[in-house]
């Protein structure tokens, strides 16, 4: 009973205790990461995982006795740890991208996957990957090509669905569908005319979203972009909140709406592009994580941004565990799983929305 009361007091929609919630979720994230590192076709016991990780911390290395097999260490440090870290970063980025796009179009159904942004980014990224277009950007060519695709798609969808200064939800969803079909078609053409079969196989796998190829080198750019975008969004949390009231109200309360919206387009396409470049299109995370976050703490972006980042990370880490365990040793693309979970939630939200409208 006491625990329940404690829970009620801190996880209370009307007056959430942010410090406690963030602390609890960070703990959850860490525990999830350690557990997820151990889980896979070859499992490693959590205590071994913890010891292997601790032994890597400078100064602690000599203290901890090696009681684990060398193979376990290779799996943990070489394969699983970068993969789980990437899952965390990708999940957080996708969730925050979702929040950003939802503020931009003033609708909680927005998600980079649903609005075709992932497809747009995939198309330009495939172009870059198979033909070496954008090769001038060196090792960032894939990220930059995906960013360009994401930005173009967001601007297109936004422009199409804006009717008399307001975002029309039907137009928004339909133009998202149309644009993602066009982009997928382009991707198909590019892959079919691909110069090499290996690139083709990689491209298809990567289009349905996967963390399987994670390497340490993949982590830096997405992490830097996530932290930078998060900082920018947190500094503008009032503006994001006001934008949800509608453009006119936001303007009347001192927001330069045009400037803020351009910034949101930039932030969302940066995060979507960089994320999609390393993990492919993982859908519905940007829909699910913000939705559960709002149930927990309401709509204030000061709270929504950090919490949905944590929830998104935890979600992707666990879905990725299922992706590598379900048909082991065969890998499932993680994007397929998030679609299977997220699709029904999207339909539920859509249904509830139309019901509210009728009342």
């Amino acid at each position, binding site marked *: 009973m006491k625990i329940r009361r404690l829970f009620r007091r801190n996880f209370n929609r*009307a*007056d959430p205790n942010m410090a406690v919630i963030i602390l609890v979720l960070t703990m959850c994230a860490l525990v999830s990461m350690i557990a997820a590192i151990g889980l896979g076709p070859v499992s490693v016991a959590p205590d071994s995982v913890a010891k292997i990780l601790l032994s890597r911390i400078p100064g602690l290395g000599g203290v901890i006795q090696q009681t684990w097999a060398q193979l376990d260490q290779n799996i943990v440090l070489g394969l699983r740890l970068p993969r789980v870290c990437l899952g965390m970063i990708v999940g957080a980025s996708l969730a925050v991208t979702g929040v950003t796009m939802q503020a931009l179009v003033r609708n909680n159904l927005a998600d980079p996957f649903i609005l075709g942004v992932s497809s747009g980014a995939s198309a330009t990224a495939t172009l870059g990957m198979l033909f070496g277009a954008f090769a001038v950007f060196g090792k960032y060519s894939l990220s930059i090509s995906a960013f360009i695709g994401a930005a173009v798609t967001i601007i297109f969808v936004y422009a199409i669905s804006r009717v008399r200064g307001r975002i029309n939800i039907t137009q928004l969803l339909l133009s998202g569908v149309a644009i993602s079909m066009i982009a997928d078609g382009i991707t198909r053409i590019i892959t079919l005319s691909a110069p090499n079969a290996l690139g083709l196989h990689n491209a298809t796998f990567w289009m349905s979203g996967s963390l399987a190829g994670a390497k340490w080198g993949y982590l830096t750019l997405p992490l830097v972009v996530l932290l930078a975008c998060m900082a920018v969004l947190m500094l503008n949390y009032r503006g994001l909140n006001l934008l*949800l*009231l509608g453009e*006119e109200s936001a*303007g009347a*309360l*001192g927001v330069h709406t045009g400037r803020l919206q351009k910034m949101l387009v930039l932030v969302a396409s940066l995060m979507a592009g960089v994320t999609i470049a390393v993990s492919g299109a993982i859908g519905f995370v940007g829909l699910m994580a913000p939705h559960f976050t709002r149930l927990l703490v*309401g709509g204030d972006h000061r709270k929504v941004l950090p919490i949905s980042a944590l929830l998104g990370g935890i979600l992707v880490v666990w879905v990725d565990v299922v992706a590598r365990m379900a048909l082991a040793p065969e890998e499932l693309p993680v994007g397929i799983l998030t679609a299977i979970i997220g699709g029904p939630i999207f339909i539920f939200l859509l249904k509830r929305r139309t019901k509210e409208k009728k009342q």
Partner: protein
Amino acid sequence: MIRLNVDKLTFSYGDADAISEVTLDVERGEFVGLIGPNGSGKSTVLKNLYRALTPDAGGVTLDGGDLFRLSHKQSALKLGVVGQENDVPFDFLVEEIVAMGRSPHKKLFDMDTAWDKQIVHHALEHLGMAGMAKRSYLNLSGGEKQRVLIARVIAQETDFLLLDEPTNHLDISYQLQILDFVKRLRVTVLSAIHDLNMAALYCDRLFVLKAGKIVLSGTPEEVLTPENIHSVYGVQCDTMLHPKTGKLTITYLPGINEPEALITDFKYQ
């Protein structure tokens, strides 16, 4: 003392001017009403004033300075707005919505202080909504939502309000309540009003818009004569000073302009 001076304001959405050469002024402490039929440009005038739209021509001076040279933030510190859009498709608490009125006072790194909380609380108290602070805005009735928006504009602490038909779609009790609240604030108000009786009850002066042009202005008694109302709205009516309020009241006379048509219709049934 003149606080707001609008000079030959012109704006068009496409080819035809939605408003053309609108000139009006509001003095300190006045409650000025903007009336006119649907589509006559009342909202368009206000939107140009709170800068949701940018005028094609004309000037606006607020407290002696050019309104359009202020930043959005600076004008939000001078002008409070209650517009027509009041649906928020996301889950916010009433107190969170009201606290948004504090935004123009905030710089980039400022957090909400105890002082802000106090202002929000006072604003809600003023509207008799202190008990609803923790309720979800989504679940409120139309009248309650409008009260929350008035509380937000109070929390904004401006002494000039622009209201765009603040009582539209509300029950009559809420209409009176909202306008009473606004009147009690003793601030300068420019409001678009749909209902002529409401305009007569609350406004010190009226400007009448027809097809985007100001056609009449003056006190309610000067403006709301049966002849004027007929020429602007095309209806017959009778006006009198009500013995209890001392204000003008309008009684509409349906069908008087075509009595024979009515009678023949009746016969054939």
